[in-house]
């Protein structure tokens, strides 16, 4: 028994080490460059603290806005029987998986106030309101409605009932949603770069401009470290807080607790869902409309221009070619992410309790942000021992590291929840261990892997944070090309950018709908 365990450990150690090295190396590189006496001038500069303060400010506003707008919708969608519920939920969740630069562009063209904090906050709410609804609603739907009826029978009016009973019971979900949205908006990059005020950078944007425009790799690494420390602190605080807020409660079946809207408030909440879904759909539709608006009316001129650009004195990259390249890169990134993700998941499950550190390590790219991954891989080449510049796989590798946490989050709960008894039944029927495993878990594992692959593909396709640091000038991806086009003056550049953004949006939506279709309906997770 012991020898078998040892052999298994050895067998598993090598690929696991590979995963760990790939994930940890970029981060280690950032630490190596950012940690030292050079950090002091950056840390003591007032501008650094202004950037940190502004990042926190916009993230806090975005989080409050997302939660406030999500609450009534979570109530309606998870407590009431709303006609077309699945459709509304799907519409509200789509933004979360859209490429950030596409969303940034959509709002830049839609809002009368681009380049402001308000614009960033609106886009962040657009991104995260669906996520907030799902996180809060998934608990709300399981709250026993009779608790509120008890409140009413004790003489509490609906408002007091909500404040003294519902809200405290929802607190764990609200704080979970809050910390997620806070992390996402704190480390948001593409949206802020496209939509923000250049004189008011966030930490992510400042890391980028320092590294890619101001020849200050050290400063960039210091800021990446600062961000990492803040994110880590936020996660620690939130886990302490969620322990405090945790309520031991028996949860009901959410299908059972939903009922038809009756009271005026319930009808208003139902109507609100429709309004919110429309509000979320508007930026996406307006982007499509914008891409068809040409100087003399309507047409496909920008799409034509995207396919074969007119020649100028500077070399024009065909927008379509960037889309093809994005697809190639995304394909490669998906293969890498799934390969690493399967190894990591197997390792986490095999190591049981000790797998927690690996779980944490794999989640690292989520915490340190895509920009840090990109910066780390860049530093590895410029200041570190391994020169990866110009290597075709560099960009897909960065994208794969960003997508890895999602692959693991999809695989882990599904495989963890496979019933061991199914395996035992298969074994007693005479199948060998491997065949037993396959008979029991094969189909579900295959489906979960396919879902993970689809999400990895969607993430890689729209990935901008890491890619922006790694991509070569002559081989831009579609999101990078969109940002480049926006940096140049002229109506044609914006037109082609919108056309490219629409194509990217469609591809992403298609990939994610496929993932939703094949997704196994159990085990939770993402």
């Amino acid at each position, binding site marked *: 028994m012991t020898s078998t365990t040892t052999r298994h450990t050895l067998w598993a150690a090598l690929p696991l080490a590979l995963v760990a090295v790939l994930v940890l190396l970029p981060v280690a590189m950032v630490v190596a460059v950012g940690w030292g006496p050079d950090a002091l001038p950056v840390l003591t500069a007032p501008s650094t603290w202004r950037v940190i303060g502004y990042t926190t400010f916009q993230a806090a506003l975005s989080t409050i806005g997302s939660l406030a707008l999500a609450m009534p919708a979570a109530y309606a969608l998870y407590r009431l029987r709303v006609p077309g519920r699945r459709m509304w939920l799907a519409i509200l969740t789509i933004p979360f998986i859209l490429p950030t630069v596409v969303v940034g562009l959509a709002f830049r063209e839609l809002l009368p106030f681009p380049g402001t904090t308000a614009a960033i906050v609106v886009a962040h709410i657009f991104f995260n309101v669906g996520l907030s609804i799902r996180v809060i609603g998934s608990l709300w739907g399981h709250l*026993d409605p*009779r*608790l509120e*009826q*008890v*409140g*009413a*029978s*004790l*003489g*509490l*009016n*609906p408002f007091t*009932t909500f404040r*003294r*009973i519902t809200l*405290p*019971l929802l*607190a764990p979900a609200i704080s979970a949603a809050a910390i997620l949205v806070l992390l996402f908006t704190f480390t948001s990059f593409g949206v802020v770069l496209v939509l923000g005020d250049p004189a008011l950078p966030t930490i992510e944007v400042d890391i980028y401009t320092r590294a890619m425009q101001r020849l200050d790799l050290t400063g960039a690494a210091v800021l990446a470290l600062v961000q990492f420390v803040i994110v880590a602190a936020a996660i620690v605080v939130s886990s302490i807080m969620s322990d405090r807020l945790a*309520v*031991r*409660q*028996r949860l009901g079946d959410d299908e059972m607790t939903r009922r038809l809207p*009756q009271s005026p408030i319930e009808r208003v909440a139902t109507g609100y869902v429709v309004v919110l879904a429309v509000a979320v759909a508007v930026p996406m539709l307006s982007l499509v409309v914008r891409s068809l608006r040409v100087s003399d009316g309507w047409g496909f001129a920008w799409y034509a221009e995207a396919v074969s650009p007119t020649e100028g004195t500077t070399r024009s990259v065909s927008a379509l070619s960037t889309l093809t390249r994005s697809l190639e890169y995304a394909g490669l990134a998906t293969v890498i992410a799934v390969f690493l993700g399967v190894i990591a998941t197997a390792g986490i499950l095999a190591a049981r309790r000790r797998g927690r550190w690996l779980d944490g390590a794999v989640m690292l790219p989520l915490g340190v942000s895509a920009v840090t991954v990109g910066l780390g891989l860049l530093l590895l080449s410029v200041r570190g021992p391994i020169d990866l510049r110009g290597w075709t796989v560099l960009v897909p590798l960065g994208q794969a590291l960003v997508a890895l946490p999602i692959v693991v989050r999809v695989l882990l709960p599904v495989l963890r929840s496979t019933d061991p008894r199914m395996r035992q039944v298969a074994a007693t029927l005479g199948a060998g261990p491997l065949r037993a495993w396959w008979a029991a878990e094969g189909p579900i594992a295959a489906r979960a892997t396919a879902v993970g692959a689809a999400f990895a593909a969607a993430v890689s396709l729209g990935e901008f944070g890491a890619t922006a640091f790694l991509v070569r000038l002559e081989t831009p991806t579609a999101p990078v090309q969109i940002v480049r086009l926006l940096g140049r003056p002229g109506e044609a550049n914006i037109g082609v950018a919108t056309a490219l953004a629409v194509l990217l949006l469609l591809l992403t939506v298609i990939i994610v709908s496929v993932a939703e279709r094949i997704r196994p309906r159990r085990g939770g997770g993402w």
Partner: protein
Amino acid sequence: MTVLEVSDLRIDYEGQVLLDHVNLTVGAGEVVALLGPSGSGKSTLLRCIAGVQRPESGDIRWEGASVLDIPAYRRGFGLVFQDPLLFPHRDVGANVAFGMKARDDNRVAHLLTLVGLSGFQRRDPSTLSGGEAQRVALARALAAEPRLLLLDEPFGALDTDLRERLVREVRSLLTSAGVPAIHVTHDRSEADAISDRVVTLAELTG
């Protein structure tokens, strides 16, 4: 003297008529047991009286005045479910005090003593046994000083010994408090033991 009067009530469930032509009266200080098999609509009737659900037609009057348009939280009818449904984020004392206008620790202590749980104030609801939790729920309902107590099979989930003991205790509690009550159950002996009058659902709709 009649305090509660339910007349010609019709209740639907998912478009189907569940109960029709229901008539029921409760006198001052009277404990009425409502007997009927599971799924016959007893609980739904109780929920309509409590005000958390609205009947299709008919009327519910308290001391002669209709309460149909009065929301549940202003009717002053206490409701105790089969599950204790204690608020999990509050300790036992806070649960009992939940419906009080202002928290009165002496009354909380008194009520807990009344249900045989003196000194339980600081306990977490999740550490209570089923019987203890149900007694806290009862104390909580009484603390809000209801005009009428609606008990929806409150002992249904408990084992027989405990149930018999609790039935006796609650009966004496209701008598001493002088609160009229409707007690829903599917158990004939429990109905007999706890009430002044036993009615069946069939009789009500007849």
